[in-house]
């Protein structure tokens, strides 16, 4: 079998790299014209960590989109995990437990809650095949959000500022020096998770199964994949990633959680995954693309915000337009190449009217 040339196989990723380079050059020119050195690599890295919160969800979402499903409940399940964690931690410490073990148990409970949310999603989706994943997760989104209100009421949950708490903050805010550049830990965490996902999705049989399900669910069932169980497992992973980003959220947002926190994060996660090359119809995508699109989102938000002084909503306008244009571009390319092919066929027919060369 002839292999695709790398340029063709990774055309989407090359496009993303191109976009990133163009953005970088524009910001660099703008920066040097102002005569200030705001836009260097180290500052970019530290500034970007604000926009990294939903990137963990985007990794989980990539798995779901690869199977042709969608999960719009991740924002709500992240809030629920954070709420469970906070309530548990408070009740344990007020019950006289030491901070350390209470904190460990609370983190475990947070991750477990995320997995449970994902399990519920997966269970309902695999049992109720008549319903679209979008509708099921719409229902569970409202359900999880309702639970958040039940746990928290209208209050804002605050975590006490003690030594164990500083650990989680360090997880988010700290930095590690590599060479002369200091990397924020959240970016390293993200790259670590992305590496695991990359190996799973592109180097192991699990990824093959996943894309096979996205391509054609029935034929992959016929070729021996236990579709229901695999899909359920992937939803659990997606819920787990939502809980992970909940941990970082608590670490970043001055350690408070409200019942309406992280609303709309699912849309960011979907946008990042889609720009990364995962289509909502399933069957294709690459984790490298997701990493690149996280970088693009971060660079764009940071650059437009600090260099050009645009307000948040203008930056969102740019994000929306980039999202639409990026999904429009491959269709236009395909349309043009299709036209070319048709023309070529026509000239072939004219050159050899008998049909035989």
């Amino acid at each position, binding site marked *: 079998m002839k292999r695709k040339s790398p340029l063709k196989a990774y055309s989407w990723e090359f496009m993303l790299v191109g976009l990133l380079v163009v953005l970088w050059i524009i910001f660099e020119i703008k920066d040097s014209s102002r005569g200030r050195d705001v836009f260097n690599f180290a500052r970019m890295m530290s500034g970007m960590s604000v926009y990294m919160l939903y990137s963990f969800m985007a990794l989980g979402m990539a798995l779901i989109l690869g199977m042709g499903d*969608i999960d719009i409940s991740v924002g709500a399940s992240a809030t629920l995990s954070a709420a469970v964690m906070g309530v548990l931690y408070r009740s344990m410490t007020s019950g006289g437990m030491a901070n350390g073990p209470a904190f460990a148990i609370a983190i475990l409970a947070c991750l477990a809650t995320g997995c449970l949310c994902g399990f519920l999603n997966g269970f*309902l989706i695999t049992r*109720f095949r*008549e*319903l*679209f994943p*979008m*509708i*099921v997760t*719409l*229902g*569970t*989104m*409202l*359900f*999880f*959000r*309702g*639970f958040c*209100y*039940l746990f928290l*009421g*209208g209050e804002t949950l605050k975590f006490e500022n003690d030594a164990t708490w500083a650990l989680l903050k360090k997880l988010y805010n700290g930095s590690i020096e590599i060479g002369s550049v200091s990397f924020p830990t959240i970016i390293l965490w993200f790259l670590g998770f992305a590496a695991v996902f990359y190996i799973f999705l592109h180097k192991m049989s699990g990824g093959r199964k996943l894309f096979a399900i996205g391509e054609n669910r029935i034929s992959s069932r016929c070729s021996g994949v236990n579709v229901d169980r695999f899909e359920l497992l992937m939803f659990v992973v997606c819920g787990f990633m939502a809980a992970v980003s909940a941990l970082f959220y608590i670490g970043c947002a001055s350690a408070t959680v409200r*019942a309406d926190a992280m*609303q*709309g994060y699912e*849309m960011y996660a*979907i*946008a990042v995954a*889609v720009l990364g090359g995962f*289509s*909502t*119809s399933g069957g294709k995508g690459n984790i490298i693309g997701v990493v690149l699109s996280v970088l693009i989102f971060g660079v764009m938000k940071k650059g437009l915000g600090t260099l050009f002084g645009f*307000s948040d*909503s*203008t*930056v*969102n*306008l740019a*994000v*929306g*337009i980039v*999202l*639409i244009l990026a*999904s*429009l571009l491959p*269709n236009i390319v395909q349309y043009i190449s299709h036209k070319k092919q048709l023309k070529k066929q026509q000239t072939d027919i004219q050159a050899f009217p008998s049909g035989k060369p």
Partner: protein
Amino acid sequence: MAVILVLLIIVVCIEIPGYFENNYINILKNSSLNLVMAAGMLCVLLVGSIDISVAAVLELSAAVAGVLMRDGHIQSVGMMFAVGILIGALAGFLTGVLTSYGRILPIIVTLGMTYVCRALIPMDFILGMDKIARIDLTDSFKDFILQKFLGLPLIIYITLAVVLLIGIFLKYTKTGRSLYAVGSNVKAAAMRGVNVNLTKVLAHTICGATAGMAGIMRLAEYNAIEKGACNGGEMYVIAACVLGGVSVMGGYGKMIGVVIGAALIATIDSAIPQLFIDATMMKEFFKGILILAAILLNVLFQRASNKRMKMKESAK
């Protein structure tokens, strides 16, 4: 199926004596915004597409019309509605062109449109203000929507008119029927001479127009609008359609079902505060549970009826 669900809810409501007599106007009034948007959403779902930008379009149209009224460009109620519907229709048209001619998946286009519409909400970055308040609106506009006519507020009549108009359009006109045709089988519809792309654009334009109209209605009812005021509202619109038995695959769905779905959500909304004391928090909780349960119950009912049909056939 949805009828059974509504009956169930009403039986629950009878537990509270005099509940329905006191509240039916409120139920109708509260469901009206959702219902107007759901009527537009029905068109989009029928052609097998989806629109998750309706809440953002609502905010945009209300904001633009509100700014125009504040700056004194518009005085009359009719012009407000015209502007709102125009803006909504433009947004819907753009979405429709991108999904049908541009061949992008509708959920991605409308996700992008959500960003774009929220960003365009004008008072945010042109004028440096962040909301339209009571004083910015003329008195006639503020009083308009809750005026009573034959004992019912005007908003209910407007909703009814929109629902009837779209319902008749879908059922009795050739163009309306072609929406069903495109949704159930694209190729067959194209062979029968339906312009598939144009039909999709039309459906999206109708949906955008209803969202824009709902924006003006909301502005008139609450007398205020700000960015993100309706965040998440699109989910309730889609939920109303799904509860009403509309297929998300396209090609199946009736207007009467959508009306029942919207009424169901409004009933849940108004019944729970009366059933429980700790109202606002319990409301969110039960709303979530009941909508999820209703969606799942709907499927179970359908399965049971399918089974019965099959048994009947095999008995023959």
